[in-house]
């Protein structure tokens, strides 16, 4: 538990004087994301510690280098959790990196993302100023929402030094139902289930099987299982009957592996594409080979592919694509942005980091 913010601030000021690019790094678990960049390391892995945690306020504040494992252990002692289920690509994953890369797990459509749970940040801008935005309260509309702006900015706007988050109670009970069905049917079906007032907390399709997780009060979860299990849906049994997790497989392990990308699907050398799209979209050329998560809103595709083609598929599906891991990381990996949005983003970048010292080129080649 160390506060290195003064040292970090000094390093930023020195880099600015020397017009030297900085590559911000926490635990290094997500260094495969974004474009390849050079720059001297600005290491936050030593800037750790939970600064403030009041379980009844549902708020935790931690230094950016604090490992997610440490945060989750502290929360678990009070039967609380990070409801956005952040993926850990390794145990070194930190809260700062999780926010910068906007990483959220299977519960995201129902519980919200890390961006939705962040309440405040402290950050060092490109002038070496240590600034505070947002706070430790649930509602705050004073000034622009600079805290949420950090989600997905990949450190290009400043060095996040501290993050305040909304935390939530763990659900009392969790059960999983599985159905055998093809991707096309599963996409429609998960959207239909999501429209019901039932405690769905994750829905994922992989290799001919739909997995639906229910979380909440025990009575609610059990009643929903009873209602949905064995129920013939829609096309008079076309979907088959849902079966309870414990009959089939270790569901807890499945959701953990999905969350942290440890399933076999992710364990291949091929490029990994992430499509964030309309949850009901049918992408005929990709879906059956994809892992479909977030109730249809997030699709993972593993394979060599042309980025322009992937972009047009994603656009048609109402969303965007990024080359999440592997492949060519010198070219653009993010969905192409229209010129006017490029201009606004460049100006925002300039407003935080006028000398362009933070992670240049990590997000886009032009930034």
């Amino acid at each position, binding site marked *: 538990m160390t506060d290195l913010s003064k040292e970090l601030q000094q390093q930023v000021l020195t880099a600015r004087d020397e017009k030297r690019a900085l590559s911000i790094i926490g635990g290094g678990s997500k260094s495969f994301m974004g474009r390849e960049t050079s720059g001297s390391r600005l290491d936050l892995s030593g800037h750790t510690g939970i600064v403030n945690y*009041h379980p009844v*306020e549902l*708020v935790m504040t931690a230094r950016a280098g604090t490992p997610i494992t440490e945060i989750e252990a502290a929360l678990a002692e009070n039967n609380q959790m990070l409801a956005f289920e952040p993926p850990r690509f390794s145990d070194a994953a930190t809260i700062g990196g999780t926010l910068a890369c906007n990483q959220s797990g299977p519960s995201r459509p129902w519980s919200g*993302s890390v*961006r*939705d749970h962040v309440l405040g940040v402290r950050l060092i801008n490109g002038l070496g*100023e240590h*600034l*505070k*935005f947002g*706070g*430790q*309260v*649930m*509602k*705050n*509309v*004073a*000034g*622009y*929402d*600079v805290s*949420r702006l950090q989600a*997905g*900015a990949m450190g290009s706007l400043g060095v996040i030094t501290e993050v305040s988050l909304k935390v939530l*109670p*763990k659900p*009392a009970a969790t059960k999983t139902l599985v159905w055998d069905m093809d991707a096309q049917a599963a996409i*429609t079906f998960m*959207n*239909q289930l999501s*429209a019901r*007032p*039932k*405690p769905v907390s994750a829905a994922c399709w992989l290799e001919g099987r739909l997995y639906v997780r229910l979380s*909440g*009060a025990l*009575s*609610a979860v059990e*009643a929903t299982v009873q209602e949905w299990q064995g129920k013939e849906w829609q096309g008079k049994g076309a979907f088959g009957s849902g079966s309870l997790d414990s009959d089939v497989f270790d569901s807890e392990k499945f959701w953990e592996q999905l969350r942290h990308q440890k399933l076999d699907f992710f364990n291949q050398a091929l490029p990994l594409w992430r499509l964030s799209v*309309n*949850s*009901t979209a049918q992408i005929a050329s990709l879906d059956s080979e994809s892992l479909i998560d*977030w109730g249809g*809103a*997030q699709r993972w595709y593993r394979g060599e592919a042309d980025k322009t083609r992937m972009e047009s598929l994603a656009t048609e599906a*109402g*969303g*965007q694509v990024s080359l999440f891991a592997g492949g060519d990381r010198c070219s653009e990996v*993010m969905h192409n942005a*229209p010129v*006017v*949005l490029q201009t*606004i*983003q460049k*100006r*925002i970048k300039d*407003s*935080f980091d006028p000398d362009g010292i933070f992670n240049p080129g990590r997000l*886009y080649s032009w930034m």
Partner: protein
Amino acid sequence: MSAANKINKDELCKLFRCFIAPQYVISDAETLKPYECDGLSMYCEMPLVVVLPETVTQVQEVLRICHRYTIPVVARGAGTGLCAGAMPNAQGVVLSLAKFKNIIEINPLTRTARLQPGVRNLAISEAAAEYGLYYGPDPSSQIACTIGGNVAENSGGVHCLKYGLTVHNVLSIEMLTVEGEKITLGSDGLDSCGFDLLALINGSEGLLGVVTEVQVKLLPIPEKARVVMAGFDNVQQAGDSVSGIIASGIIPAGLEMMDSHAISAAEDFAKAGYPKDAKALLLCEVDGTSEEVQEHIEKVEKLFHSFGATSVRTSQTEAERALLWKGRKCAFPAVGRISPDYYCMDGTIPRGQLAHVLTEMQKMSDHYQLRVANVFHAGDGNLHPLILFDANIPGEFERTEEFGGKILELCVAVGGCITGEHGVGIEKIRQMFIQFTEQELLQFTTIKEAFDPLGTLNPGKGIPTLRRCQEYRSIEPKKVTTHD
């Protein structure tokens, strides 16, 4: 501005009337009058011109003209805002989006609605109801306020602890830049590549662009909702009960607290059966599946008793639930009956500080000789002190404003903020420097310049310019005053 770039009022109206129906270009004093303020009527200014365009193309053209002549533009929805965020600029155009009232599409499978910015908040849920869906954020003004205004203020409501603010429920927006260029932020997906500009726009008070379309998420209507009402002999016990509920692992759909002034006013007005002798009243709504609600209601009732509630009542029917809420929802107008005027504040505090803040506020109330009634979104720490005053007594509003400012300073001092959901507008611009340093304010200013280099979108609101900040600092002591 060069002489070539100047235009007088008549020429400007003539330009607007080339593409907007003449009756929707308002320039006479009498018709302009209703636009002089928003929901915070203490702050008034007559605009130069009001336009009510009917198409996005017309809005684009208005923006292009104003940009060309560097004319301030104040976008306006229903005008229900409570921070003078839509107060006109004397040299500027009020751009009313009142004609954009169409619900473009409701998609029951994706659970989304595409809306023009002038669609009323409540109209979304009304239209979605036939699909078993509704829109989460429910500000008290939801019968009148519009989704465009909700985006501008990042509106919350009674249910936002569980279901989030506007920023959590908007998927994408179509927006015009100050130059009139159309851009889309967000998508049908749950996130997009690059900077999260959507997060910046929510709560930006019309300073960064003009919203012309909003796509929101819809939620399944819960199977069941019930409310438990509990009266307490003191505020501390009520506050402890709130913490007790959260600690038990229940996230209520709504959790509201009222103090004795508010209880009494609301009961006289709504006849909801509130215990008028109570010093604090809690309303705790639980929703979900029937089984879940049953389980949680029993827990909440037990908790209230264990924390010393003097009365506990649980709604048995939908009608009773509506009645119990009626008092709370009418609390503002009810307070209006016991005082000629009232001034509503909007600070946020960590819940644990409630008893301290209320005690300090009582001291200030004695000092300023002004009564204060408190309505509190207890679940999320959002406090609405209503200062009772009489605008006809010279100097009383000025005293009220000063009292309000002190309350907000107190909120910041205990770790909260100056506005939870009403926004900064003009009203709280002075308090911005209590919450933020000059460096932080300058960072906001540069963000504003990234979107609006000439500063013509809703100038003077939301973010103080540093020059003004210096002026405020010289007249306002930064220290929180307590009144012993």
